[in-house]
């Protein structure tokens, strides 16, 4: 049985050479041996402690001391046991080893439990359990649970004891930990015994007996258990036989627990038989042992028995003495039990409280996230209009002083955008939303891009901006170039900002390198104002600059450094700073990076070729945007950049879907947050519900939402790309050309018949435009009524058509919309379908949702339809009259 594991360990031990590993295995062996031979285990424990000292291996020493403490507990030497355990505990604390600490705590619990201090024992077990939960050691948790079950058992709280014991049963079975399984079965047997479920109890003890070798503690324990059950069951002879066997074994093994149990039950047995003297011998032996070993519980039971015995023997004073002691102990234990229950309740409450707090915290975090996303959207939407319209005004040949104002607006808007982006970045980092990419990139290209970007700024202040890259650094690297350049731009930009004259230099050095990885050192040095030593520690905190007056003088949010530091942390790098006031500052950023085999070819990001622009000019675009100003910006920008481009407008997702159903577009520029139907929903409908080729239209999201998770959501919905508002013109063109297959578009534009749109939009009229099915159904076939309605229509509709013409002439869109709205139901009643009349389209177009230039054609077409309808209806009316 369990010797298999022992043999395995011994075989393993023989093979090992490293003393550390040998010692570990030796401890495992001792742990096996302790179950059968406590004395041998103590010898081994001493051995372990010496050997651990020799090679300075504190953890092994701790384990050795723990083992020794355990052995002393088994032998009943509680004080010495406690001393060793305390030493082991100290070592566990020093080495910060949680598993050892948990084990030591559990062993402490055993000793206190045996001494009857159940509350303390419980505390130790629970602390051990908490530790084991932290390190997720299931078996160790089960050990603690079974210990807790023991305590409940001692507190006479058998229901709880059973619950805890049964909870750890499957874990031990799974772990095939035979020793633990048997001790658990033993306690289960005891619990069942107390619950008077003797059958189950017997089963547990017998199973254990079958697993135990003769002459072991377990064997004796099982026998004593079986004896107990027999006794309770009234099988006195069998009980006596088994108990005697157990007693003999336990005396040999010097096992206190079994000796007390067997003596106790033998004493009771003999008391029942009437042989008081023999009974007294047994009970007194057990009593002395329990007093000697401070086993409070056993002491209590023995007081009870002894008082009964002396009562029967007629020795009333003695009986009374024992009875009093019994009551006292019972009271003590009962008190502990009540306390324990109270404490249980408290713990439960604490757990609930913690759960609630966690929920609240999570909700708050989610709210904050939502708030940041909303805020970014709310600010960016008007910013888009400001930036875009300023740009458009700049191109309208403004007067010199107007240029100055426009420049100021542009500068302010740009500054504001930087601040918003900073705040967003920081909240993204704090929310853990930033994911560091691992892509191949060229270091030199990155550094040059940073220099080019900041060169102008340095030049304006008359500063020298120097860049140097260590020759030994591999150029092809793996990492997140966007974030690295963000850090560099922050730091170099900062250096330029705080330097009045002199230079700003940034260098890249190689700190270390092996085959696949290297660590780079980015140094940014300036000859600026420097940072006071008092502030150096604080500058990485949010919203802190070197003194509030600095912020006033130099502007900015002071978030740049915080973000740089957080990003560096995310890349497992380090950022350091050295500074002398008045002389300058040096930031040092070290970042570990991978070395790449190849890097992607540099993308052509410079201006698009003329051919591409021409191709783009032939595209047909549907702009979906609810904000009027942003619509203006987008339309004017596109028309300016790509004269001749065809732009349709939809003010929400639902309209966009309708338009896509009607027309073939090359591209949709789709805002996300819109009333009625948002951009994501519209995209889903277009992609999933429309038929090819309409579902394949390219869609670019235009959004003020810039959180990464949102972008992913757009792409998941089937969008082809996204553009963050406010957008730059080049960015718009590049995204458009990237998404569109330009050759395809050009081809399509050529094939698209350049005929009058009236033929493109309108199908030839059907043979009959009217249909009286509805009218017949409505009137129940009454001809006079049909006639009346048709007559009214014939009278009314021409009047409305006139209104329509007048509205068109006066360019009064509101009027057109209202008239079309009135005419619409009437046409429907006469059976003129929307596909034929386009009356709904007229209403919508007049409402500003479509191409207003098309209105005259649409209305002209409506006249045609109505003329035909009037003819059909008046003929039928005449016929009917006859």
């Amino acid at each position, binding site marked *: 049985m369990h010797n298999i594991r022992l043999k395995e360990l011994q075989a393993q031990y023989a093979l090992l050479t490293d003393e550390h590993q040998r010692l570990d295995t030796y401890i495992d062996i001792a742990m096996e041996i302790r179950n059968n031979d406590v004395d041998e285990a103590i010898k081994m424990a001493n051995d372990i402690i010496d050997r651990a000292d020799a090679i300075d291996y504190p953890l092994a020493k701790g384990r050795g001391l723990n083992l020794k403490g355990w052995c002393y507990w088994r032998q009943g030497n509680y004080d010495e046991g406690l001393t060793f355990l305390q030493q082991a505990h100290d070592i566990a604390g020093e080495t910060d080893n949680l598993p050892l600490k948990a084990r030591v705590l559990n062993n402490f619990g055993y000793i206190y439990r045996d001494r009857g201090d159940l509350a303390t024992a419980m505390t130790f077990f629970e602390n051990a359990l908490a530790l084991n939960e932290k390190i997720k050691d299931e078996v160790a948790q089960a050990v603690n649970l079974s210990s807790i079950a023991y305590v409940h058992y001692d507190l006479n709280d058998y229901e709880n004891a059973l619950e805890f014991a049964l909870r750890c049963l499957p874990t031990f079975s799974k772990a095939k930990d035979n020793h633990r399984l048997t001790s658990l079965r033993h306690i289960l047997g005891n619990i069942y015994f107390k619950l008077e479920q003797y059958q189950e109890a017997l089963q547990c003890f017998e199973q254990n007996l079958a697993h135990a070798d003769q002459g072991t503690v377990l064997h004796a324990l099982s026998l004593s258990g079986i004896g107990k059950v027999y006794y309770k069951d009234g099988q006195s002879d069998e009980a006596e036989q088994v108990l005697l066997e157990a007693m003999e074994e336990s005396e040999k093994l010097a096992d206190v627990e079994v000796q007390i149990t067997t003596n106790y039950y033998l004493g009771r047995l003999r008391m029942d038989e009437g042989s008081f003297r023999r009974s007294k011998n047994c009970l007194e032996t057990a009593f002395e042992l329990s007093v000697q070993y401070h086993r409070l519980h056993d002491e209590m039971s023995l007081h009870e028995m002894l008082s009964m015995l002396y009562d029967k023997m007629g020795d009333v004073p003695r009986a009374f003495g024992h009875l009093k002691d019994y009551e006292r102990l019972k009271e003590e234990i009962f008190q502990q039990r009540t306390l324990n229950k109270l404490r249980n309740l408290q713990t439960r409450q604490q757990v609930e409280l913690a759960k609630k707090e966690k929920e609240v915290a999570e909700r708050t975090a989610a709210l904050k996230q939502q708030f940041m996303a909303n805020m970014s959207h709310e600010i960016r939407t008007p910013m888009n209009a400001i930036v875009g319209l300023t740009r458009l005004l700049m191109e309208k040949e403004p007067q010199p002083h107007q240029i100055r104002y426009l420049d100021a607006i542009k500068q302010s808007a740009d500054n504001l955008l930087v601040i918003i982006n900073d705040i967003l970045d920081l909240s993204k980092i704090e929310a853990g939303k930033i994911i560091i990419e691992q892509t191949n990139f060229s270091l030199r290209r990155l550094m040059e891009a940073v220099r080019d970007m900041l060169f102008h700024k340095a030049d304006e202040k008359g500063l020298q901006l120097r860049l140097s890259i260590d020759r030994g650094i591999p150029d092809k690297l793996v990492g997140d170039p966007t974030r690295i350049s963000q850090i560099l731009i922050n730091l170099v930009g900062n250096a330029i900002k705080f330097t009045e004259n002199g230079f700003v230099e940034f260098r890249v050095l190689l700190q270390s390198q092996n085959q696949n990885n290297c660590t780079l050192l980015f140094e940014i040095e300036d000859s600026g104002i420097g940072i006071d030593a008092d502030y150096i520690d604080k500058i990485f905190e949010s919203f802190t600059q070197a003194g509030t007056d600095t912020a006033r003088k130099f502007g900015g949010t002071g978030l740049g450094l915080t973000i740089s530091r957080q990003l560096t942390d995310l890349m497992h790098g380090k950022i350091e700073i050295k500074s002398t006031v008045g002389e300058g500052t040096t930031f040092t950023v070290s970042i570990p990076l991978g070395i790449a085999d190849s890097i992607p070819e540099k993308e052509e990001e410079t201006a698009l070729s003329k051919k591409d622009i021409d191709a783009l000019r032939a595209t047909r675009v549907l702009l979906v945007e609810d904000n009027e100003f942003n619509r203006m910006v987008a339309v004017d920008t596109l028309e300016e950049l790509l004269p001749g481009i065809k732009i349709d407008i939809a003010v929400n997702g639902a309209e966009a879907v309708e338009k896509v159903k009607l027309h073939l577009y090359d591209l949709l520029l789709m805002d996300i947050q819109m009333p*009625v139907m948002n951009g994501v929903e519209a995209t889903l409908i277009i992609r999933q519900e429309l038929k090819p080729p309409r579902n394949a239209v390219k869609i670019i999201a235009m959004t003020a939402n810039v959180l990464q998770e949102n972008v992913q959501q757009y792409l998941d919905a089937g969008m082809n790309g996204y553009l963050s508002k406010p957008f730059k013109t080049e960015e718009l063109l590049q995204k458009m050309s990237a998404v569109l297959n330009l050759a395809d578009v050009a081809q399509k534009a050529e094939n698209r018949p350049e005929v009058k749109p009236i033929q493109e939009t309108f199908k030839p009229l059907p043979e009959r435009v009217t249909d009286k099915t509805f009218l017949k159904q409505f009137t129940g076939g009454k001809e006079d009524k049909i006639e*009346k309605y048709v007559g009214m229509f014939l009278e009314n509709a021409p009047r409305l058509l006139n209104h329509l013409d007048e509205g068109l002439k006066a360019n009064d869109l509101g009027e057109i919309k209202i008239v079309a*709205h*009135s005419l*619409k*139901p*009437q046409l*429907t009643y006469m059976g003129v379908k929307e596909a034929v009349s386009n009356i709904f389209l007229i209403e919508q177009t007049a409402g500003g949702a479509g191409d207003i230039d098309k209105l005259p054609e649409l209305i002209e077409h409506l006249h045609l339809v109505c003329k035909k309808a009037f003819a059909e209806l008046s003929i039928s009316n005449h016929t009917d009259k006859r």
Partner: protein
Amino acid sequence: MAENKRLIFLVDDEPIQNEMLKDYLSERFLYDIRAFDNGEDALQNMHLKPEIMILDYHLEGSKKGAKNGVEILKEVKEKYPDTQVIMLSGQDKIDVAVDSIKFGAYDYVVKGETAFSRMENTMNNVSELHKMKTINTAMRKTIIFLSISMGIIVLISLYLFLFYRKPF
């Protein structure tokens, strides 16, 4: 006379719509129906206390400067809150519906071929509501009446008991 005859106002600037709806409703309900081609006229006649008003959303089609349906709705609901208003509109637009309900309309029906049957359903609901309200009022009155009579009885008996007791 017309006091106990139940009354409906139809308000639509399109005569054909009014006519069709009037015919449709008069075949199915025992209401007196009066049609108006603008909201102002309807408002002038509100003293007739119509139970239901069916009101077009756009009323400015034929007559320039006419008040539109929402304005009429607001006025009706302000001065004659007992009249239930059902809005009619030519288009299925959520903001129209929201506006209508916000200002107290009972329901909102989109014009078209299905409008008539939907109107019938809505009317049924309204008159159900009206019936319930009437019953409720009647019951409330009954309860008040009963409690008052009970009170009087108790008072009288107390009075008799206190003052007409024969002294022993």
